């Protein structure tokens, strides 16, 4: 079982790309054995949504200063999780979710973890993605489908 979790706030423009990507994957259809989850701004529940998955793919928006729409891929072994004692349950991010998931699930935590971050252009209150991020969402949706063995569909 692979679980793909999209995080972010739909009310903050490009920050909503995670949940929107999940919706797009759902429309396109994923093969059996792949579970989709809209993590939204749920914080700790992102960790609960990992469930019994063997592989975890997390998608979130980021603001690193790169060109908007840039997609970063962070392999699990490169992902440093912060010390749990400093996790602030309000300011919960994908890295905290991984740390929380490791603590909650212990040996059942997925062996493989991949994090995709999409560079945001606009994080102001409002709906909808900027064109660069919309395009990155499509690209990543296709890429994820290819990786999990689903059929590719013309965007």
């Amino acid at each position, binding site marked *: 079982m692979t679980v793909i979790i999209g995080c972010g*706030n*739909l*009310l*903050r423009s490009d*920050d909503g790309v995670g*949940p929107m990507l999940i919706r797009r994957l759902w429309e396109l259809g994923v093969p059996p054995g792949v579970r989709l*989850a*809209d993590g*939204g*701004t*749920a*914080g*700790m*529940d992102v960790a*609960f949504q990992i469930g019994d998955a063997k592989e975890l793919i997390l998608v979130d928006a980021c603001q690193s200063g790169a060109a908007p729409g840039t997609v970063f891929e962070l392999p699990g072994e490169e992902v440093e999780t912060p010390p*749990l*004692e400093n996790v*602030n*349950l*309000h*300011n*919960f991010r994908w890295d905290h979710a991984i740390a929380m998931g490791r*603590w*909650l699930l212990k040996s059942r935590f997925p062996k493989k973890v991949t994090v995709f971050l999409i560079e945001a252009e606009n994080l102001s*209150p*409002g*709906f909808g993605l900027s064109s660069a991020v919309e395009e990155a969402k499509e690209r990543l949706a296709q890429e994820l489908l290819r990786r999990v063995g689903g059929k590719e569909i013309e965007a």
Partner: protein
Amino acid sequence: MNKTEVKNKMELKVHSLGRVEGDLDVKVVIEDGVVVDAWTEATMFRGFELILKGKDPQAGLIVTPRICGICGGSHLTKSVYALDTAWGTEVPPNATLIRNIAQAVETLQSVPRWFYALFAIGLTHQNYASSPLYEEVVRRWAPFTGEHYEIGVMLSAKPVEIYAIFGGQWPHSSFMVPGGVVSAPTLSDVTRSIAILEYFRENWLEKYMLGCSVERWLENKTWADIMAWLEEKREHRDSDLGLFIRYSMEIGLDKYGAGPGRYLAAGSFFHPQKYRFPTIEGRNAALISRSGVYDGKDYHDFDQARIREDHTYSFYRGGGAFHPFEGVTEPLDPMEAKKEGKYTFAKAPRYDIPGIGETPLEVGPLARQVIAGRTGAEDWQDYDPLFLNVINEIGPSTMVRVLARLHEEVKYYLRVKEWLRQIDLNEKFYVKPNELPEGRGFGATEAARGALADWISIKDGKIENYQVITPTAWNIGPRDRHGQRGPIETAMIGTPVKNPEDPVELAHIAQGYDSCLVCTVHAYDAKTHKELAKYEVTNMMAGI
């Protein structure tokens, strides 16, 4: 804020950190070790009302559950009732039952998660190391390593599994729609939900929280009953609830954080037959957990028409107090607005009590439980005298506020079980409504942390005005045009702070209200402006 150059007087600043949600600063002035004044300052503009203007009337069902990462179901509940009343829909009994269940299981989830992952962590603070119970408190409640911390956090995920069975997902579901719910549960959905609920009771609620059956706990009708319950059995004393009460009284949580002593509940959960045709006027008479206002002496019927939002001290154009249907949200540049003496983005919700006038009121579990003590309930409504007795006997405090929250967990468990049994799988869950192009609606519920309500005006098939009043606004709102402080501002005053370099007492108050904000306390020496302390008040809530 003016730095006060008085000896032994210092100012603490509770500063915020939030990312996608409202931020909060609480400034506190301490004199001779006691808080003498407080100001709550929301530093971020919350623009949901502006986002909704001009949108499809049903946009509130999508937008408002995203206001918050933990109360999404509560937002959905009140926004759907706002539309039901605006459109004059018919809501079949099954849909009311499922809405009740969804609202209640979200709160069932919130209570253990809030207690273990937020509130109880503060109780392990080294300030209390000399308490004889300290070692046990740390063993159970220390974050990530405490034995009951892990159990409580894990089990907190169970109740919302029931939400997901009916609502597709939790949080951020939009499965409640005008005229009902979009779900078609089967018998196995219902039996699975009952099994999850029983698992939750057996493996946490009774085993760890109460140390007794839910029925035994609910026999407690007075503070004296609770004291007798503690003495009755070792299991009671040693339960998390028993330990919490004993420890609180030892470290003084029962001595501060009283708040305004006046309360408001918007009420929640509808009788399935009595709210088939939801109206604003018919709402009070259909509520299982009743609405109401308690002014410290007398009870008053709740009337949404008496609610005002005062923005005299808020970063919005002009001043005065308006009903939400007349609400204006014209934000100002905080730097400019501060010159007029304004200090926050939060408005100050007030209730115009007959004969008293606009009054700041506390909302939340304690408020609900005080309102539940009003006599004259129908036999199907919640009547519970416990917390009216408790505040009369020992007065409100941070301990009492926490106790009210834990008490509700027991009551909600029983209600959900009953509602699950009442679902008639052969009957309707939805009746298609007429989407009227004009109308006004009001929908309200009780999120875990208090009264939550929407007002919607629809014109030409679009949202003309949308106003949300959250429990956090009620509790963290600022002063008003009459100079009255908001509830948390009031609750801070009089608090003894043992160590101004680490004012954990203020964190207990803020966390006791569970206002949905992240705060950091910066303590500055009034004379030297040297930063003395930095203290984070974390909260898992996201934005209501």
